[in-house]
């Protein structure tokens, strides 16, 4: 009897789980469509505005977001999370999902640049990226596993051409924490715990005077390209394609530019 009862229970739990999943996946009721956009964390300020404008132009379609690190979004899509659109912070991940046939062909919709941020009081007196190699600086960056961290290391390598071959080595030795997302970098610099950090320009602009930005030489920049793509398993592909076109269209461009994003490179 024991075996039987536990088996029945597991079956019941699975049934409940399946119902719950079914409920979450169905997005349309009474002629209303709800689109779910799995978006990179760095889009969390501009995309809600985008949704408001989109719903004005397309009554009956509401857009909701699930923000996370791009790598986490990719894992969610690969594990079959329900969603209609993927909007990531790295072209590499868009291509990966396309090759794995989880999404339609991705299109670049924005670019972002890195910037060095320091606390308003600038305790370590950092005036240029060259100062980051001074010994004893407490530097916080994204981990090597997240796009921001990958771009940071690329920029540092590029800066070797400007500041000498041992520059990036010295800067990497000053890292006191590899954060799992840009928000972690921002928090630690904002609180004055770290002397400097690398974040996206849009993140630095969004917090206004809470941090001070130190620009990077443009020749050393590694430009992050943001891909958008319709998820193949979406139940609302037509509406999802309309949202994609909206982001790529004039209103989308303007909102992105206002938030500090650059236009996608001409293909």
């Amino acid at each position, binding site marked *: *009897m024991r075996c039987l009862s536990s088996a029945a*229970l597991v079956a019941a739990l699975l049934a409940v789980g399946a119902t719950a999943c079914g409920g979450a996946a169905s997005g349309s009721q009474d002629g209303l469509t709800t689109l779910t956009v799995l978006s990179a964390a760095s889009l969390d300020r501009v995309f809600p505005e985008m949704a408001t404008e989109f719903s004005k132009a397309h009554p009956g379609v509401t857009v909701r977001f699930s923000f996370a690190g791009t790598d986490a979004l990719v894992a969610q899509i690969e594990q079959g999370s329900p969603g209609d659109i993927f909007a990531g912070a790295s072209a590499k991940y868009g291509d990966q999902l396309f090759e794995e046939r989880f999404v339609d062909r991705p299109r670049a919709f924005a670019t972002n640049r890195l910037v060095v941020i320091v606390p308003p009081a600038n*305790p370590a007196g950092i005036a240029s990226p060259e100062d980051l190699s001074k010994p004893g600086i407490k530097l916080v960056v994204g981990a090597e*596993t997240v796009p921001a961290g990958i771009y940071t290391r690329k920029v540092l390598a590029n800066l070797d051409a400007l500041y000498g071959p041992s520059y990036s080595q010295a800067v990497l030795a000053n890292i*006191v924490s590899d954060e*799992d997302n840009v928000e972690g970098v921002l928090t*630690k610099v904002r609180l004055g715990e*770290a002397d400097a950090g690398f974040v996206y320009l849009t993140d630095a602009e969004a917090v206004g005077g809470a941090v001070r930005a130190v620009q990077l030489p443009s020749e050393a920049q590694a430009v992050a390209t943001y891909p958008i793509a319709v998820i193949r398993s979406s139940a609302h592909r037509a509406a999802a394609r309309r949202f994609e076109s909206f982001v790529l269209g004039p209103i989308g461009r303007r909102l992105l530019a206002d938030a500090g994003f650059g236009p996608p490179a001409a293909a």
Partner: protein
Amino acid sequence: MRGPAGRIDRWVAFFFGLAVAALLAFILLPVVAIFARVPPGTLVAQLHSRVALDALEVSLRASLSALAVILLFGTPAAYALATRPRRHSATLTTILELPLVLPPPVAGLGLLMAFGREGLLGGPLRAVGVTITFTQIAVVMALVFVSLPFFVRQAIASFQSVDPQLIAASRILGAGQARTFFRVALPLARPGLSAGAALALARSLGEFGATLMFAGSLPGSTQTLPVAVFTELARDLDAALAIAALLVAISAGLFVGFKLLLREPHPSWLDSSSSTSAIV
């Protein structure tokens, strides 16, 4: 023979059994799933990675240091609180238990606001040339903060359950405070203390949010096993699962081992505990 009451009893017994089975399945399924996803060969291979080994060393060192601090301060504090009248100690005990109800990121933020460079004690600490954030000391502090209540609660209850007449007898027979504590109260409270220590150690090994907030994450320095699982998830699911499996094995192993080893001496347990410690 059996009347309606007997039938009801059988149904009640059935539902009690069902509740146990349901909870066992609910807890065991995710744990088993971690091991089921990755083939054992891959698991072992992943464990030789630099990230896993570094995180293992950081986690073990920090958790054992935290446990030492907790035992050193927590045991006398619990004894002091347990032997005072309850109405005096209740508030103090509740304060020590506070981390139980704080979300770990809140605990981490609190530690930053208190001990960070710009925190309440930041100025004085800087004056003596001490920075805590991003160091292994910060990891240990986060672990102590979060796991202390697991030990202290259990320790207070254990000391309270020691027969006061035995303490009184020890004092009457001429033993001082210290001798009474070490020779009477401590041995009698030992089973409860060890259970508390095991819980605190397991909680330390699993700590994530407060550590990340207060100590950051640097491989080989402050990146613990749970933080490594989270970071590796971004790169490689198999690697993350391997570290997760390692974490489950170590935490469960230490938890069970500690409970057995520090238990009240008992012949039948002694044998199994020595074999467990050999495995751990």
